[in-house]
């Protein structure tokens, strides 16, 4: 048997699973979005936009804001891990930052639901420390809670990728800039960041797609309107059995991520061809 055939036979079962259990349902979500009572039409989209245009915008704003904050914090933490001069502070930071890395979203939702509530531990601590009056306490269980949950969970993941990339860049350019008296913030922005830009991009895109798929966090932190379209999709199916509108919302979320996904896949392909 030729080696190429053996290779193909070894890969085929894994490919078949991805094809049957991911690509086929993905295609049927696209066709289902245009299926209005068995005929082709745009009815699901007009209904989806009618009911949920606010939530679509809300979703986009939350995910973009979260991505921006994740990017900012991961650059700050990764930058200090790479350029920090005090070995003990670097070691402490390295130990602290990665705790949420593998904590499941459903647990993050439960933890933050009790922590950020009006009478939650965070407000109680602030009141006890005298930083806030009890009357000023408010609940963060709205869009802010969702952003906090996403940033809390995803920053360690992007930081891990970014710190790895930063550690592997050529140290001599950093040393040269340091000897010339450049400040660390300037070294980070002008020398380190341009070299790890692609890793940051890949990390942020993976986070973007993940955030667009998470159902538990919006359900647990803020299920009332305005909420994320993931929660709307679950509601359409559980309450109305309305697959048409759910698929239309699904296609809208696919369009939002496909822009990001195309950038990511092209990036990966370029790296492979090198």
């Amino acid at each position, binding site marked *: 048997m030729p080696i190429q055939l053996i290779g193909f036979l070894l890969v085929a079962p894994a490919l078949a*699973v991805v094809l049957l259990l991911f690509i086929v349902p993905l295609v049927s979500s696209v066709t289902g979005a245009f299926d209005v009572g068995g005929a082709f039409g745009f009815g699901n989209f007009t209904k989806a936009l009618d009911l949920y245009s606010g939530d679509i915008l809300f979703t986009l704003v939350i995910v973009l804001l979260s991505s921006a904050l994740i990017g900012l914090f991961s650059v700050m933490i990764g930058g200090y891990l790479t350029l920090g001069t005090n070995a003990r502070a670097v070691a402490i930071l390295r130990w602290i930052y990665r705790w949420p890395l593998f904590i499941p979203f459903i647990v993050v*939702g439960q933890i933050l639901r009790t922590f950020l509530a009006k009478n939650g531990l965070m407000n*109680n601590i602030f009141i006890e420390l005298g930083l806030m009056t009890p009357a000023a306490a408010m609940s963060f269980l709205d869009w802010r809670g969702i952003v906090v949950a996403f940033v809390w969970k995803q920053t360690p993941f992007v930081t891990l990728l970014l710190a790895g990339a930063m550690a592997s860049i050529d140290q001599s350019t950093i040393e040269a800039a340091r000897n010339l008296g450049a400040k660390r913030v300037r070294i980070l922005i002008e020398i380190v960041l341009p070299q790890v830009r692609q890793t940051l991009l890949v990390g942020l895109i993976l986070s973007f*797609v993940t955030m667009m798929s998470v159902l538990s966090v919006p359900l*647990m932190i803020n299920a009332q309107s305005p909420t994320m379209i993931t929660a709307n999709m679950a509601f359409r199916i559980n309450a109305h059995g309305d697959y048409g509108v759910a698929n239309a919302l699904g296609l809208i979320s696919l369009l939002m991520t496909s822009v990001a996904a195309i950038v990511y896949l092209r990036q990966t392909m370029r790296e492979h061809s090198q």
Partner: protein
Amino acid sequence: MSFQIDWKWIPRGIALGLLAFIIFGPLTNLILWAVAERWYFPHVLPLKYGFSFWANVFSPRGNAMASLGTSVLIAGLTVIVSLGLAIPAGYALARLRLPFRGLILLALLIPQAFPNLPVYVNIARIFYQYSLNGTILGVVLVHVTHGLVYAVWIATAAFSAIDRELEEAARSMGASALRGFWDVTLPIAAPGLLASAIFVFLESLDEFTGTYFVGAPDVTTLPLLLYTAGSGGNYQIASITALILLVPSIAFMFVVERFLRSDVLSKVGH
């Protein structure tokens, strides 16, 4: 002897303290909820601590033990199926000259590049026709699809990191290809494959969205139990369940680097 105070520790201490509060504040909150018997406004800390809710959760009639059993069964089966698919695929992608290798890798990347919620919705619809909804097998298949991407990536990286000459040495001494794989390649790749097994296990244990659409209400895993308890306002039960899910995730975070050596990590996605 002179004491030198490093004033730079003041901003450093504040920044690290703030980060520690952000990370550990919510985690402490979870632990407090898990051992709180009574806790209500305006008390900063629980009024009474105890384990009566734990006794409830772990009693033979409590549904946490049944959910834990279901979760572990599903995760175990998911690992077996995923690695059964990923080890041959990873070996072929790392070692054999495959036609359309780039395209195959691309196809295997797709589940990572699109939001999976619309996919789960339609899988549930397809599974319904084959009576797979609400069955363990249905949930395992969904978890396998999700875990397969990581499993194939890590397996490919683990096989790529092995020196090709070791295999060739075994072959030149008369070992068959399968024998060389079994006796030489597989043992060297084992730590990376073990890491991928643990990762797939955890992903399955923690998975919510797919189980919610395909499994509920017949298959209740720990994340579904946590969700139901939390929606019902039963924060003690939800927190205890969350803690059960939290412990393996944090343990894995600390040991992952021992399994995945940097030479393997650097080959992930290549």
